[in-house]
Every structure is written in structure tokens, then in C-alpha cells.
């Protein structure tokens, strides 16, 4: 029984709990509250806005530190979108830039100890992914009409294979919102669980006195290394989310392969 008590104490899932901060009453029988998730989303939006507003307010010819940070992030997303979706894709720049900065800031904020990782919840990532896919579908039909369905018929396929290829293309299109949301969510979830599991090894070992403290150096080093890896993953997943969004938008703009 003592073992289960210890396991509860070091529960790696505990960090993902959603805690209401203050109640906003009920709307249509649904309980609405301002949670820690909403708090961290608000913090991320405030940080992004202040970075970009402060960064672009001076408009110096030789940029300072904050201005070059704002310019680098702008250039980075703009180049990525221009390369994958072409010049016409640039009309979606505000959308893709907001998505990239939002996901990046949420991922990085979640790495601080005791901070909540908003992107480790499937609700958030699925909402973002559905917004992306709906934009692709609606804009695809709006711009191309029924020719948008040509997306599912690759050129140069022998006639008898066409039904099979169309089926595969439709399935791969349908799995896009699933994979887009699950990739971000599962990466953040798995990374943070691994971090906490190794961190709990330090506590468990240090319970054995001096010998345990020496042994605890190993999981401590592992935790430091994993934190470094998680910084990379946080950036990489934001980049992957943004680049997949621009590639899907490219499909809406140029549906024929």
C-alpha cells in the first residue's frame, strides 16, 4: 500500500490537471470557468503582442535586440510560407504567423517548472487543426469550385488504378486533422511525462541517504539533457505545425498535382 501512495505522489500525469481559477457561471448547462489553461493562453497572447508591438515601434534602420527578434520571426514564417505555398499563399500569412507564434510560445512557456503546458491537451490542438483544415476546404472550394476535388486524382495514374488511388488520397486527406492535432499533443504530452518520470527518480533515490544522492546525479543529468531536447522539440513542433499548415494551404490554392 505504501508503494501506491508513493506512486500517487510522483504521478507524472498530475501536471496536466486543469484547475479553475474563477467561475464565470453556467451557459446552457455547461460550466464555464477561467482555468489555468486559459490563463496561459492569455499570457502567451500578451507576450506575443508585446514582443511584436514593442519590436516594431522604434522601426530603427539598424534593429536592436527586440526588433531583430520580431523581424527574424516575421522573415522566418514569411519565407517558409512563400516557399511552400507560393506568392498567393501570402494572403494567409497572418493566419500562419499567428498559429506559429501561438504554438511556439505555448510550447516554450510549458517548459518552465510549475507552468502549465496548454498544447498538451488534445482539445486545444484539435481546435487549431480543425481551424486549419476548414480553412483549406472552404478556401479550396471558394477559389477552385469543384476542381478542388482534382486534389484526390493525381495525374499520370493508369486508369484501372484510379479508384484505389482516389480512395487512398481521400483517406490521407481525412487523416490530416487527426495527425496534425495528435502529433503536437502527443509530443508535448510524452515529453513532459518523460521529464517528470526522470525528475521523480531523483526524489526516490534521494530517500536512500548519501548513497542515493550520489546515484541521483544520473537521473538529474538526464533531466537536464531532456530539458534541452524539449526546447528543441517545442520549437520543432511549432515549425512542423506551421509548415504543414502552409503545405495544406498550398493544396487549396493549387489542387492539381
Amino acid at each position, binding site marked *: 500500500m505504501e508503494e501506491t501512495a508513493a506512486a500517487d505522489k510522483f504521478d507524472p500525469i498530475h501536471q496536466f490537471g486543469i484547475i479553475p481559477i474563477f467561475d464565470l457561471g453556467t451557459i446552457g448547462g455547461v460550466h464555464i470557468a477561467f482555468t489555468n489553461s486559459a490563463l496561459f493562453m492569455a499570457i502567451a497572447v500578451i507576450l506575443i503582442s508585446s514582443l511584436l508591438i514593442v519590436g516594431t515601434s522604434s522601426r530603427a534602420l539598424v534593429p536592436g535586440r527586440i526588433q531583430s527578434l520580431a523581424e527574424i520571426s516575421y522573415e522566418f514564417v514569411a519565407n517558409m510560407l512563400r516557399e511552400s505555398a507560393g506568392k498567393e499563399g501570402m494572403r494567409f500569412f497572418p493566419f500562419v504567423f499567428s498559429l506559429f507564434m501561438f504554438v511556439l510560445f505555448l510550447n516554450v512557456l510549458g517548459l518552465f517548472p510549475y507552468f502549465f503546458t496548454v498544447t498538451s491537451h488534445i482539445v486545444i490542438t484539435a481546435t487549431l487543426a480543425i481551424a486549419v483544415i476548414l480553412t483549406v476546404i472552404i478556401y479550396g472550394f471558394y477559389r477552385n469550385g469543384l476542381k478542388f476535388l482534382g486534389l484526390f486524382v493525381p495525374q499520370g495514374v493508369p486508369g484501372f488504378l484510379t479508384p484505389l488511388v482516389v480512395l487512398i488520397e481521400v483517406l490521407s486527406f481525412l487523416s490530416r486533422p487527426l495527425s496534425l492535432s*495528435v*502529433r503536437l499533443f502527443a509530443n508535448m504530452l*510524452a515529453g513532459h511525462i518523460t521529464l517528470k518520470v526522470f525528475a521523480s527518480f531523483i526524489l526516490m533515490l534521494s530517500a536512500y541517504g548519501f548513497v542515493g544522492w550520489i546515484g541521483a546525479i544520473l537521473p538529474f543529468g538526464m533531466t537536464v539533457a531532456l530539458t534541452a531536447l524539449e526546447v528543441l522539440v517545442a520549437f520543432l513542433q511549432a515549425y512542423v505545425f506551421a509548415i504543414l499548415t502552409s503545405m495544406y494551404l498550398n493544396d487549396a490554392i493549387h489542387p492539381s498535382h
Partner: protein
Amino acid sequence: MEADAAKLIGAGIACIGMGGAGVGVGTLFGHYLAGAIRNPAAADGQFPRLIFGFAVTEALGIFSLLIALLLLYAV
């Protein structure tokens, strides 16, 4: 067999799927590196494609991890 034990074994079996994703991601980066050493000038231009391939390959491994996590914590 107890249901809890079967759950844990199932989660372990689900993790085998991640090995396939590991092979895929390794192949991807290995071939990218081989190509990049042959022609370093063209390497940067192909980086977005590398990341795209990585994302699509990794998704399959993530799916099996998700099944394992669901078995451990949700079922």
C-alpha cells in the same frame, strides 16, 4: 489473466510500433545527411522537405504511443 495486467502488456506491445517510426526517421535523416555531404549547397533548400517527411513519419510512431498512453491512463 487480470484485466490490469492485460492492459499493461497491451501498452507494451503498442510501443513496438514506435520502433518502425524510429527506423523511418533514422533512414530519413541518414539519407539527408548523405545527400547533404555530397552537395552541401543544396542541403538548406531541402530542409523543409526533410521536416515534412519527418513529421509524416513520426506521426505513425506517435499514433502507437497514443494507443499505449490510452491503455495506461484512459481505458
